[in-house]
């Protein structure tokens, strides 16, 4: 579904990604782990071109996103993204947050968008907060709304950029539960995370990144149970 070919990304003189190649298949749940500064988030942000790769290709559903002629906006509709800091629109109610893009971008009739949004809100248990403003929600609620906002566009793949890192510990669970549900429903997901439990339990592939490259990649059993490289071993010994 997403093919990453030899991806490089520099921030001025700093090389953040040094040749990443991988393939995300439909219904994959890929967790990207690694120490901070390893390039995980940059890698994820390159997938929907929020970060412009210095070189390399991102092929999504047969289209090269790094090609200037590709209509990025069209493809981004199919790639939902969830941010560490939620980035809900503070001047809109929850419901307005959810229907803004479907109505404006996909030109879906407002009533239809509202019906869809309410149905998804109900699934994450927040249908009673539809008229609230983001600042009235807890962190966990915000992140669940952010996930629903991405889902309202009916994406083919969901990108999660450390979705629980900004949350109070007691709210991590409610967000992870929603993500588990999504994975169970067959959603293709790429998750940058520090939640090793989630990675082990939910993902079918774990990618360990360090210093801008994928150091090791495999099933959770392989990566957590039988790590090969030293860096991964020392990383796991610190976080587990």
């Amino acid at each position, binding site marked *: 579904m997403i093919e990453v070919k030899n991806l490089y990304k520099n921030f001025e003189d700093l090389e953040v990604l040094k040749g990443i190649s991988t393939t995300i298949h439909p219904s994959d749940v890929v967790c990207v782990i690694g120490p901070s500064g390893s390039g995980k988030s940059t890698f994820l942000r390159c997938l929907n071109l929020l970060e412009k790769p210095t070189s390399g290709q991102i092929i999504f559903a047969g289209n090269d996103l790094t090609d200037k002629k590709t209509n990025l906006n069209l493809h981004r509709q199919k790639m939902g993204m969830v941010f560490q800091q939620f980035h809900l629109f503070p001047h809109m109610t929850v419901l307005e947050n959810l229907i803004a*893009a479907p109505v404006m971008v996909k030109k879906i009739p407002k009533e239809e968008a509202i019906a869809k949004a309410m149905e998804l809100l109900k699934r994450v248990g927040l249908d009673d907060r539809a008229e609230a403003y983001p600042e009235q929600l807890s962190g966990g609620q915000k992140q669940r709304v952010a996930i629903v906002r991405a889902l309202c566009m009916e994406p083919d793949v969901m990108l999660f950029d450390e979705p629980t890192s900004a949350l109070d510990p007691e709210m991590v669970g409610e967000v992870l539960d929603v993500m588990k549900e999504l994975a169970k429903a067959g959603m293709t997901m790429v998750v940058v995370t520090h939640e090793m439990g989630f990675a082990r339990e939910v993902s079918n592939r774990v990618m360990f990144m360090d210093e801008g490259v994928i150091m090791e990649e495999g099933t959770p059993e392989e990566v957590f149970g039988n790590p090969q490289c030293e860096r991964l071993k020392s990383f796991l010994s610190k976080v587990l």
Partner: protein
Amino acid sequence: MKEFFQSCSQFFEDWGQQLYNTFIEDERYMWLVRGLGNTLIITLGALLIGVVLGTIIAVTKYFSEDRRALRFLGKLCDIYVTTVRGIPVVVLLIIFYFIVFASYDNGVVVATITFGINSAAYMAELIRGGINSVDPGQMEAGRSLGMTKLQATRKVIFPQAIKNILPAIGNEMIALLKETAVAGYVAVEDLTRAGNLIRNNTYDAFNPLIAVALVYLVLVIILTKLMGKLERRMRKNDRSKKSV
């Protein structure tokens, strides 16, 4: 004591006469009313031009940052802002009146355009600052949902930017209103010039000029109150129905 009261009553008698001369005789209060009318027309017209043109400039500059095709337009906007902000508005006004619109002698229109062009430069910088004050994550969130930059700017960035810069816009409006006092330079009979004309006719400086000053003061107070109300309403929009 008796002398004191006498001089007092003399003073008020004289003052009454002066007030009569300043405002009533020859219906001079109408000069002030007409002047006030022109001041308001120029201010509101210039404000409209300033907001519209300023927004266009700010947005053009914003979009020219990452689009090569627009870079030329962005440069043009820079030149506009630098030039206009670098020239005193009085100088701009007489240049427009005596050179640019030399063949057109409606001073009110020329003054409106001049003050509008002047205000646009300041508004543009204000609005650009407002746009930049919004968390970049907001734009990323909008773009990640498939919005174009223009859509995200309109729907996500702009409403937040406006809220941030509302106090500064209020300031700019007040500055604009007071700046229009120099419109008399090109024979526009605005409020200030009306007061001055009365002074010329009655040889009394105190009453007309203080009256003019008071009118400006009242206008600014009204403006300040209105802006305060608007700010409160916009803030309330975010927090209405504060939950239990």
